[in-house]
């Protein structure tokens, strides 16, 4: 596949992942490090559906069903992992979710029916730029609408002060679980789009490092800002690739330069590029839209 097309699609997939994780980490304040696990679940279940079960329907319908399956299975995994883990706080939650993320990966590694450590091959390339960015729009609209309703305010109040939120009559556990499931579900969609873009997935695609990179995207963009998550995802997907084009020296040192840029950005703007602010294109173009 064309390198630039592939990169653009990867940007979209990482936007979905980052916006989903932002609901969990940035909006609800629950520090999750298991996002790559949910991504893997979506990628594998949708790929298994397409390869083993899918009836002879047009490709885009199969992909759409695959995305829905990815959303549901990853969402259920989020529920199963979230219910015991979300009673933990802060660092403990991070470690527990990290553990579960790795468990998912290792379970897949030991499943021979989906290729095990050799990877899952022969997935048809059903995804394209249009479907990826359609899902990007769906993700952003759904999460932005949740956040600006009463359920979203409940989720944000947990980040601000959990004890006060409880005292305001908010069932904090329920809304933490909701945020966790929706975030995980969209990671599953990103997984479905990913497996049908690359046509080959293996457990090494979903290591703990990727959870960290998705987390970096939202920290860089600004925790709690959807706009920030989008911009963070674009920068962190493109930057390491972009550095290939500045001659041999830069190309060899690109991961070092990439790290230094990240360190500098965090020193100059510790709250991330956008902080908690949003850029609303409708408002910007004076087409209405109120807070």
């Amino acid at each position, binding site marked *: 596949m064309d390198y630039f097309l592939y990169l653009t699609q990867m940007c979209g997939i990482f936007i979905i992942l980052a916006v989903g994780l932002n609901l969990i980490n940035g909006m609800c304040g629950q520090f999750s490090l298991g996002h790559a696990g949910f991504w893997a679940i979506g990628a594998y279940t949708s790929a298994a559906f397409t390869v083993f079960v899918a009836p002879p329907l047009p490709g885009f319908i199969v992909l759409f069903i695959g995305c829905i399956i990815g959303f549901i299975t990853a969402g259920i995994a989020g529920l199963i992992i979230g219910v015991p883990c979300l009673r933990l706080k802060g660092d403990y939650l991070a470690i527990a979710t990290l553990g579960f993320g790795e468990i998912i990966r290792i379970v897949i590694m030991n499943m021979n029916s989906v290729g095990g450590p050799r990877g899952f091959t022969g997935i048809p390339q059903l995804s394209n730029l249009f479907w990826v960015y359609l899902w990007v729009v769906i993700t952003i609209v759904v999460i932005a609408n949740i956040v600006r309703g009463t359920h979203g305010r409940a989720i944000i109040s947990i980040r601000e*002060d959990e004890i006060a939120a409880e*005292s305001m009559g*908010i069932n904090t556990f329920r809304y933490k679980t909701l945020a966790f499931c929706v975030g995980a579900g969209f990671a599953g969609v990103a997984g479905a789009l990913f497996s049908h873009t690359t046509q080959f997935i293996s457990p090494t695609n979903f290591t703990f490092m990727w959870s960290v990179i998705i987390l970096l995207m939202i920290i860089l963009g600004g925790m709690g800002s959807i706009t920030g998550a989008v911009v963070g995802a674009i920068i962190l997907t493109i930057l390491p690739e972009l550095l290939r084009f500045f001659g041999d020296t830069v190309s060899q040192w690109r991961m070092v330069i990439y790290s230094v840029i990240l360190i500098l950005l965090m020193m100059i703007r510790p709250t991330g590029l956008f902080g908690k602010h949003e850029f609303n294109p409708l408002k910007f173009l004076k087409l209405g839209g109120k807070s």
Partner: protein
Amino acid sequence: MNPIMETQAITMRFGGLVAVNEFSMKIGANDLIGLIGPNGAGKTTIFNMITGHYLPSEGKILFNGESISGKEPAVITQGGIARTFQNIRLFKDLSVLDNIRIAGHSRLSYGLASSIFRTKAFHEEENKLRAEAFELLKIMKLEHRVDSLAKNLPYGEQRRLEIARALATHPKLLLLDEPAAGMNPNETKELTGLIRWVRDHFKIAVLLIEHDMKLVMEVCESIYVVDHGELIAHGGPKDIQNNPKVIEAYLGTTEV
């Protein structure tokens, strides 16, 4: 008249420490009651038991004749008990309006799907909630601050916002944990009037923990005094001021 809230010999133990011992009180539907005592006497522990943050080791708490001990704090708030905190706990990075709207959460009934698809129910309920929030902010004299972040409000207004937020849950009993802490005499005076006015206007019961004796003696009709977790006196402001046990708890005894 039946009390709206009643604690029956509630005891709270933390390991070997008895923080509150067999504390009993009754609050009528429109009472304004004070809870005082020296530092560490167990006043906030009593609050935390009433609001469900602690489960009493022994004893029962009745609200509207129903036992509420063991229920989740959120459920108790939905039932009609709201509180403020000793060290202000606002949603600091949210606007004043959002702080109030969050308190109205349990009154809204539209589902997640309505929120995602912006249905008619969503707009109707949100508009109603917004109007209610504006009205409450207006009577609490905070309407000029609607869009400010809670953390940017001056101290006195933050205290007032916390009371407004508690009122927005539509309580029948309001618990105020040291509302005058850190206030200057002018602000305290204003607060004194506000507490009385809130009680009369919303027709609710108020239970107040406070160290500012002037405020307590001025607004409370009945006062409970605790020391070392024990109830040592109960009565009107005049009785309390002259009660030898209370004077002893606050000032100590003379050693001969």
